């Protein structure tokens, strides 16, 4: 009995150690066979989640460290690259942000969030050619998402490719016929084609859906101005200014319409406030 009680602690320690070894073997085996994440993948996710929390609290420098730690554990973790890009952008390190997004799409070619952010980053840099290519990837991955088509359309519009933009807006409107952002942008395409009647029709539809859509009221003012209807244009600009009294495109539009109507004093009133 005495000798048994003497070796009992050793048996216990051995059992615990054996159990731990078995667990480690099982988990690595599971990871290798695709049954669950490995400890380093778990660590990468944990650090990414921590970084995301810090990032939403506005602690971008600390968040960046977490994302770096996450990527050290797992350099092919696309989400961490995307989140890292977000923090870099918040810290105004735009080149580093874009580089992170490129890493993200290399790590996961089907990561829609990465392509979307990359399209935005390239667009912000004025590199519409590559932004358009990124947006094309985005709509290939997530073709049922109206926002993806809108994004692609907007990039095409910024590139000056209005016919391609219109096709993209049509895809977005097919998904949601009341999608006011796409309807508004499509109206700009109609204005580009000098089809002011179609533009006005689309803009009226947007304003029925949302009477406070200041961009639509302003564009309506421009369409009326193109038709020589300055009084109507002034009313439309005023409608936009009801929503946002300091909206420069509406103020500039109204000022010019007033000058065209010979109402110089009212135009000057706007000029000194612009």
């Amino acid at each position, binding site marked *: 009995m005495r000798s048994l009680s003497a070796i009992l602690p050793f048996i216990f320690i051995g059992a615990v150690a054996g159990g731990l070894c078995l667990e480690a073997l099982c988990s690595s085996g599971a990871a290798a066979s695709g049954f669950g994440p490995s400890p380093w993948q778990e660590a990468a996710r944990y650090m990414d989640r921590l970084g995301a929390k810090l990032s939403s609290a506005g602690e971008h420098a600390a968040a960046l460290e977490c994302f770096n730690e996450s990527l050290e554990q797992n350099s092919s973790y696309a989400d961490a690259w995307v989140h890292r890009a977000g923090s870099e952008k918040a810290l105004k390190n735009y080149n580093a942000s874009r580089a992170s997004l490129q890493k993200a799409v290399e790590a996961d070619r089907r990561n829609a969030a990465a392509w979307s952010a990359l399209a935005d980053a390239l667009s912000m840099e004025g590199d519409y050619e590559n932004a358009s290519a990124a947006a094309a990837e985005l709509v290939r991955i997530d073709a049922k998402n109206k926002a993806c088509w809108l994004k692609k359309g907007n990039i095409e519009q910024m590139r000056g490719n209005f016919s391609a933009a219109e096709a993209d807006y049509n895809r977005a409107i097919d998904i949601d016929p009341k999608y006011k952002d796409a309807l508004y942008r499509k109206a700009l395409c109609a204005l580009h*084609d000098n089809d002011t009647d179609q533009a006005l029709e689309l803009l009226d539809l947007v304003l029925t859906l949302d009477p406070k859509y200041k961009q639509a009221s302003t564009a309506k003012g*421009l369409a009326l101005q193109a038709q020589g209807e300055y009084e109507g244009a002034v009313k439309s600009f005023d409608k936009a200014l009801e929503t946002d009294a300091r909206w420069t495109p509406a103020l500039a539009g109204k000022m010019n319409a007033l000058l065209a109507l010979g109402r110089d004093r009212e135009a000057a009133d706007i000029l000194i*406030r612009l």
Partner: protein
Amino acid sequence: MVLYRKMNMKSAAMLSALFLIILLYPVCLGEEADYYDWKGLKAYDAKNYSDSIAWFDKSIEMDPGYIDARIHKGRAQRALKDYNGSIDTYMAALQVDRLKRDAWSGLIESYAALNNYSQAAEAARSLREIEPARKENWLAEGNMLQMEGDYQEALESYEGALRIDPQYKEALYRKAVSLLALGRPEEAEGILDQILKIDARYKLAINGMGLIHLAQGEYGEASELFENASQVDPAWSQPKCNMAISLIEQQRMDEAMKIYAAI
């Protein structure tokens, strides 16, 4: 006798101490007022405007004649958008010193923030009367009169500024706007031209000149001027909007929308 002498010495010492206290008391209060004002300014710099007001109040309590604390308090109230409160503070400051420029300037800004341009113009006139040799005072008066819609009287204020400095761009530009408002675009154009000879990159004058050409149907010249204004300040959206409108007037819708969609 010794006791009497001792008592006399004691009384003299006490009297001297009392005299010193009476003499130093206002100095100490002044020092404290200055200290609290400094604390207030520190809080203001840290954007803790409510805290800064509490410090300025303490400073004013210590020394009601300490005008700087009142002016700093008015500024902190404006930062909190308490414009009526700031007006009261500036008024109180002016009761201490009627000639204090910063109090008048703060008062003008507070009235302007409340869109009360008639009172703002009144305050600007008072400031200009106190310091007629400062061109900025004439300009401020003119600007408030313009905001009130009195373009004719504003013109006289700008003339006052230009008597002090004939090359004062800001006053020349505002004079041109007054002339435009009064239906004298040719004269306005002449003034804008004068500004551009002084400073070819004065963006307001370039844009203003573009507007005059646009109103006269001279679209080519207008577009060129808006383009120039955009080059001077690429982040300024106003000339881009004007450029798009100039192109719309020419029915060059495709070019107009390329600019407009990117604004």
